[in-house]
């Protein structure tokens, strides 16, 4: 494998950022009101220098108050889920790990629903509940997956899938027994849906949380490379395994929790994207983490654009699009792994 240089890292990330920008512009262009790309670029420029007031109202409302926040949310969610997936894959040394498959997304969903029931008056209650749920779920799955002190790949995956269905059953129970007021919203949100904008305060929390989480994981990326060879080997090479694992588990759970509280359980992104990135750019985590973040963002932006425009005016939940693409790939990887 070619050694990773600063030059290669910057070129790769720069290239992916340009691709992301292109998909954002494509996503901004498509929808109920068609917009030309040239106008978009000019108007984006105007907004960047704070002169948004010069744009016509309806057009600005649709493209910049509805479409753009949704796209930005998609970027955050895609980046968070992909980096969380890549991290879980390193920690568990299992290529099939993904927040959704491991039940972490369901745990986060259950956590935020419980929090919403117990303390609906606090604005921050959903992300915090989701975070606790995600941490609880990954801890549970981790202990389920241990056999004789070793992580067993099959047991781990089974543990994740069983936890996910257990959490879903509790969610179903809570939704049927509690008053039907928020039910419709919940059902939609559970499928993974970006159509509901989050408040601007939440946008900042998500942005800061995402940067902190990805940053923390990125700071351990050299150690993650060594950890892939095995925990004992990594310890011999001078890696503080306990610290790295703690940092990465907490950060990856935080990222999953942020993504879930913003958009529900969008599946398979954390599985698909890191795999694609590994195939193209190699498996050095120093490149894999930022490249996964950018590619995950691209994937969600494009999937959501498809979900918005495939059967107008009805919108599909973006989780349906990612599952349609992701589930077959999961099976392919599983079959390949078994051989």
């Amino acid at each position: 494998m070619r050694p990773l240089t600063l030059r290669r890292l910057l070129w790769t990330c720069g290239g992916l950022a340009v691709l992301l920008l292109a998909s954002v512009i494509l996503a901004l262009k498509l929808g109920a009101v068609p917009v030309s790309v040239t106008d978009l670029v000019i108007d984006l420029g105007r907004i960047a220098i704070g002169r948004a007031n010069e744009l016509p109202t309806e057009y600005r409302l649709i493209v910049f108050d509805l479409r753009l926040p949704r796209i930005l949310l998609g970027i955050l969610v895609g980046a968070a889920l992909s980096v969380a997936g890549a991290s879980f894959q390193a920690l568990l040394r299992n290529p099939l790990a993904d927040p959704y498959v491991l039940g972490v997304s369901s745990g986060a969903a259950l956590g935020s629903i419980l929090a919403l029931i117990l303390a609906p008056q606090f604005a921050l209650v959903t992300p915090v509940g989701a975070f606790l749920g995600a941490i609880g779920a990954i801890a549970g799955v981790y202990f389920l997956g241990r056999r004789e002190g070793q992580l067993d790949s099959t047991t781990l995956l089974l543990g994740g899938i069983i936890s996910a269905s257990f959490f879903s059953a509790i969610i179903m129970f809570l939704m049927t027994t509690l008053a039907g007021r928020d039910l419709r919203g919940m059902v939609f949100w559970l499928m993974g849906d970006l159509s509901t904008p989050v408040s601007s305060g939440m946008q900042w929390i998500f942005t800061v949380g995402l940067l902190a989480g990805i940053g923390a994981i990125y700071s351990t990326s050299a150690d993650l490379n060594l950890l892939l060879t095995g925990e004992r080997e990594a310890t011999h090479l001078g890696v503080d395994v306990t610290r790295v694992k703690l940092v990465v588990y907490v950060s990856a759970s935080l990222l999953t929790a942020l993504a879930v509280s913003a958009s529900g359980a969008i599946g398979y992104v954390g599985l698909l994207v890191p795999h694609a990135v590994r195939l193209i750019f190699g498996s050095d985590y120093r490149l894999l983490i930022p490249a996964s973040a950018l590619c995950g963002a691209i994937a969600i932006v494009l999937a959501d654009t498809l979900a918005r425009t495939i059967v107008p005016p009805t919108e599909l939940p973006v989780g349906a699009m990612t599952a349609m693409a992701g589930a077959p790939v999961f099976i392919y990887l599983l079959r390949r792994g078994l051989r």
Partner: protein
Amino acid sequence: MALKSMRSAINGASAGFRRQRLALFFAAVAAFFLIPWGGLVAGQTSARTGANSPRRELTDEIGRKVEIPREVNRVVSLAPNLTEIVFALGDGNRLAGDTDFCDYPAEALQKPHVGGPVNPNLEEIVALMPDLVLATKSINRRETVNALDRIGLPVYVTGEPHSVEEMISSVEHLGSALGMEESAAMVAKNLRGRLAELDRRLSGAVPRRVLFVVWTDPLISVGRGTFIADALRRAGAESVVDTNEEWPHVSMEDIVRLQPEALVFASAHAGDTQRDIDALRTRPGWKDLDAIQHGNIVVVSEAINRPAPRMVDAIERLAGALHPEAFRSASGTGFSLWQLFFAEANPHRLKPVPHEEACACAR
């Protein structure tokens, strides 16, 4: 935790390469996210103050304060019953758009659609440039209302009706929101008058014990707090299912034990319902019901499922079918709807009563 580990990573790195790389990476990512969002936050504040037409404030049925233009000319309805109410108020032209499920009256089908009531396309709604959006707590999501709120589109939300009277007061409230108080008062007066007339005719009648079938697989009926249960009471019937749950899943065993006098189905397509009922005749549980064996089945228009003025038509027809004796003397024709539905086990006679027939006797 995360920040601390970041800092220790940066400080601990011996190579300048690593620090530089991290800084560059974060600067690029931060710039990418923060620039457009900063602009958006700045732009959002002005979006709300952009309105220049005279406005008035009113409180909607769920207690939200809504600021709406004095003159409402373009309305988007997010629920079929609200669409019907706008048409019933007599000015369907003001309706700029409705949902995929708005199928009555026929003009509603011609309006631009904004998707389903649960997941409407927000962009389509904005593109129709409405002065006011109508939503209902019964089917629309709170998130949709919040999203429209945030971008500054006024949304009037009607509550979840628990009685026919609440439906009528919704008509009046929407009338005042749309500046059509007079026609709303007329519609309300007409509906209340017809209901009072029904009450008068049915005053001596013993309520029929019925099972209202919302869905057959699984069997879903109505709870006592729903507007349908109230509609049944208005039509001289009472539901054998009596529960606090709104749309209870009912066990067939209970229904066989309760033995309702009649089954009430609501249907838009009489043919489909007839096929469904034919299938039920041979099903375990269903075939043990006296109502099925004797053909005591009433099919009313699906209008009874929709809290809109047309619901009263369905109530009148149901009352006529269940209590023909109460209407016989008035109409003078002596025909018996009760016999039409009850005496005959022949499924081919099973059809909703034509509108004029049923209403002629009730009005």
